């Protein structure tokens, strides 16, 4: 249902025990939601391919990601298979004529990419996940059940160009 991605559009590399760095790159910016959903879908599929059933997102807060608070566990509150609002990858992009990357963190409190989308010539969205098996920690706001997420997104996503 999801068309195959072009060469280099999606990459995944091990980054630690059970951890993987996932990157989606492209040149034609469509919308933040479209591209982040594709990355989330790839994270879910990669988890399943690795024999896992759920994954956790390691938030990349860097130096500029301290404004938005870390979501807290609420073990007594409602439980979720996933919470899309907490799938927050980090972006970097180049505009026409630029040779340097500009970083945008969803934790910085800054509005999403201020540049005119038409001027974006390159973008890169990345997330680090940890693949997990067994009963899901559904009180963890950064936990995502792979099958449920894949089911939700399979009809919605396509790889960027």
């Amino acid at each position: 249902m999801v068309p195959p991605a072009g060469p280099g559009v999606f990459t995944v590399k091990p980054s630690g025990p059970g951890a993987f760095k996932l990157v989606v790159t492209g040149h034609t910016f469509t919308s933040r939601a479209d591209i982040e959903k594709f990355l989330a879908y790839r994270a879910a599929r990669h988890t399943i391919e690795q024999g896992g059933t759920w994954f956790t997102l390691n938030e990349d807060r860097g130096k500029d990601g301290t404004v938005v608070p870390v979501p807290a566990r609420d073990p007594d509150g409602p439980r979720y298979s996933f919470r899309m609002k907490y799938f927050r990858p980090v972006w970097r992009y180049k505009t026409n004529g630029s040779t340097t990357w500009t970083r945008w963190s969803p934790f910085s409190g800054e509005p999403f990419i201020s540049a005119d989308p038409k001027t974006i010539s390159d973008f890169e969205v990345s997330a680090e996940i940890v693949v997990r098996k067994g009963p899901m920690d559904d009180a963890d706001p950064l936990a995502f059940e792979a099958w449920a997420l894949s089911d939700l997104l399979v009809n919605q996503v396509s790889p960027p160009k």
Partner: protein
Amino acid sequence: MIKRALTASCIAVMAASCTQAAAPWVRGYVVAFYDPAFRYGGRADYSRGTEIEPGVDCPHGSTVHFAVPAQVAKSLSLVSWRTPQEVEALANPPATGLDRNPAGVYFHTWRAASAYRGYNRDIETYINPFAAEDPGQPQVTSRIGEGFNLDGKIKANDFVSPDGEKGIDNQLYRAWGCDAPWRGADGNGTLVLRSNDKMLEGLYTVVIRISGNKDPMNDDDATLEIGYSPDQIMKDARGNVGVDYSYRIINSEQYSKLKAKIKDGVVETEQADIHMPQIAWFFNQQRDAFFRHGKIRVVPNSDGTAAGLVGGYRNWRDVYTQNIFAQSGGTQGVREHEDHVSLYYALRRHADGMFNAKTGRYDGISSVYRMKLVPVFVVDPDKPMGIPARDSDTQGQRKAFDDTAAAMIKAVDTLVPQEVPPTSRELTAVDGVEIGRGGVALPGRGRRGYGGNRTASSSELPVNQVSPPK
């Protein structure tokens, strides 16, 4: 009768030595109360308005889906194609000064909006729950739960029985135990009450027959039969389920015959597939509760009644469809303060049996139900018979249920969103209000089928005026 009296007296003094000569024996029960084995943990001293209190089972209390505007706004804000203004308008249907019942406006607006929460506005949610975001479901956090160790393992998420047995598999309780209509003290959850009222008023009857050839208190080669009875439950002069009436048990698709062992009066069956009637409050949902790898336990009480427990792995699709499609998802969700999208995700998250190697996912969830049993005579019918049809069959209501369930199952199995079947009760007008695509309440439609929750005529309900702004 003499044999029965002797058996009853044996049960009454079962702690004492009471023996009978080895001889064929039989005893029967009718199910007088039937509910999911959810262990209520509320505090008796707690009171906060009309809320069902929190407890050790559910620290935040029961679900409050579609109970208040803030909760509705929270759910609808997950819908990507709705603007914040639309969400606000739908959560708080505006008063226009016209004569109408506010409860009806909320009811119809919310049930309509709740039915379209997919990733695009044409996807009906209750048939395609996978296409909506998870609104979240409070779940049971306590460790004590009734049931059986179905898989012979002791796992981290298992419960400990009130008797201290570890490894109890009852993930339906974990997933749905805080769901408002099924939670409450002494079985007073709204759907527990409703389904039992319907059963006691004749919607369906479940009977159990236990027989053997040794001592009824200790028999290692007994037989337990459970199944549908075509005979309505009889009550005594006080309105309680009557003792010693006779009921037929029919060998239908809702019948099972199991080997059992009896020790000190406690009956426990082998582990096997079990077919029996499922909990119902409408005839169209009165179906087979199919427990895979299931088990039944019957514990006699000193007054001749008994406590029954049946458990096994049920297909989560059956559990979902049984709970929702007797009427429509929106009607039930708003009325009962439950959200079937949340319930869908909770079922799948906690599914723990019937592993499907083809899909790599579990199709079953361990499920346990309680039964209060009253002693009766259970007999075979004079000639073989099936489960009788009811009037509602001729109105196509069972077909409506089947068509809707089939569409939902096809949707979740193929991940191709399905249309609402034309027969489905998802399309049925309530109080003359139908639900249009995109979750718009459409008043002024002909009444079809269910007319409950009637608060005003369609002319008094200008629900179209609370449609979301364009």
